[in-house]
């Protein structure tokens, strides 16, 4: 029952946020600000985790492929596909749900508690449109970009780890990367990124925007939004895989 009311309120918020901007220039400014906040702000962590997840998947794949019949280049092929299909979109988005999500929830929660949202409303500004929409749009633009960067770095990480530990040579790795490449996988990864980006931004925005009470509630909203968006990401991951693969 509570699930239905929450979903209803969430959808109402999404609906309420669609309106004509009071001033396009200010909305654009806010959008750009959010893009740099979300994009630049989480670039560091994305770079680090992508590199290591590529490295780890190269080493572990090699460990599992013990048969001498299988050519070494297959390792590169497997690294490429797992990184593109699963690791880059899902793992990165789960991490971003923590980094970006808690930031959005606490920022909006703080604005709610300290009456800054009320102040916007009093000025005659649609606070949902001004505060929530730019965040969602920025996430939809920037997060898929981060996923692409992450996929590239993951593959690079696999190569460095593979050659450094003597598992396979750089030429084998490059050869493997070019074997049986399916562009559809990239499309699938992008479909996932857009879906997850929407969750990562809209769920925390919902919880943050509707905080009531004090500072304690902000923390609670931020935790809850991270949990809910992670669960939704994993569920959507399954649904999309079942549908699209």
């Amino acid at each position: 029952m509570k699930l239905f009311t929450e979903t209803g309120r969430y959808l109402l918020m999404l609906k309420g946020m669609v309106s004509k901007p009071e001033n396009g220039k200010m909305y654009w400014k806010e959008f750009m600000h959010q893009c740099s906040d979300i994009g630049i702000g989480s670039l560091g962590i994305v770079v680090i985790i992508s590199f290591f997840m590529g490295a780890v998947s190269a080493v572990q794949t090699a460990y599992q492929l013990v048969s001498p019949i299988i050519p070494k280049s297959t390792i590169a092929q497997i690294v490429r596909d797992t990184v593109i299909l699963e690791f880059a979109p899902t793992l990165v988005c789960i991490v971003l749900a923590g980094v970006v999500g808690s930031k959005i929830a606490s920022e909006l929660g703080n604005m709610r508690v300290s009456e800054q949202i009320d102040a916007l409303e009093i000025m005659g500004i649609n606070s949902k449109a001004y505060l929530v929409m730019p965040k969602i749009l920025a996430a939809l633009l920037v997060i898929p970009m981060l996923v692409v960067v992450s996929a590239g770095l993951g593959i690079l990480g696999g190569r460095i780890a593979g050659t450094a530990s003597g598992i396979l040579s750089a030429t084998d790795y490059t050869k493997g990367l070019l074997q049986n490449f399916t562009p559809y996988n990239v499309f699938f990864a992008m479909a996932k990124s857009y879906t997850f980006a929407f969750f990562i931004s809209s769920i925390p925005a919902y919880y943050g925007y509707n905080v009531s009470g004090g500072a304690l509630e902000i923390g609670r909203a931020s935790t809850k939004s991270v949990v809910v968006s992670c669960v939704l990401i994993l569920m959507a991951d399954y649904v999309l895989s079942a549908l699209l693969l």
Partner: protein
Amino acid sequence: MIEVKNLKKGFGDKLVIKGVDATMQAGKCNLIIGSSGSGKTVFMKCLVGLFEPDEGEILYSGQDLVTMTDEQRKETRKQIGMLFQGSALFDSLTVEQNVMFPLDMFTKDSYQDKLKRVNEVLDRVNLKDANKKFPAEISGGMKKRVGIARAIVLNPKYLFCDEPNSGLDPQTSLVIDQLIKELTTEYNITTVINTHDMNSVMEIGDNIIYMYQGEKEWEGNNKEIIFNKNEKLNSFIFASEFLKDAKDMRMLEVKGKIDNDRNMDELLNSDEDVLNS
């Protein structure tokens, strides 16, 4: 002018505003006084539409805020300036950007013009040299003044102030009161002020509404309030022994005058400032 008719608002099953009728006059400072928790903030938030009232009408120049369409409401709100009890400045913006924000949003003026206007209002609230500071870097009283500056920057038709001088020293308090009063008469603004500061009440109370546990208990102006016969109001105003004594002394003094040359009603209805004559 804002007319409030039979306004009711509750949270859960607890009624906070229990059917209030009031008229906020244009060009006057309309004060809402009452002890902490009497519902002043809730009442004001209903007036501006931040809380949906459970019952009643709120007429802005005859138009009911409750039944307005979103567009009409937006238009009305552009004429409203509000100072919140906690100032509600935007944390991520500097003082200057905070005050400029409504201008950025609703005017197409050049940056130079906007900056000129911002400095003008900051000057009026006696705040200089704080332009580049962030809200976290200024004192509570300064925040209040920035909040006022932001509220008046677009020349509103309706001004709402929730405790404009709580947390200010008596001198700054007076400056703020005078400023609000000046603006109100100068631009014929309908000003509504929540306060429990008796200085303000005496200085600027053109129309005073005393709220007691969500009900309007008394209404009058700053001349009448001294001589009021309402017990609850009197125990609210003259809370300290010192004030009680001061009042009694004053009463004796004034009384002598009344007995000597005119009766009380005449005095109350005249424009003369009884206490300062």
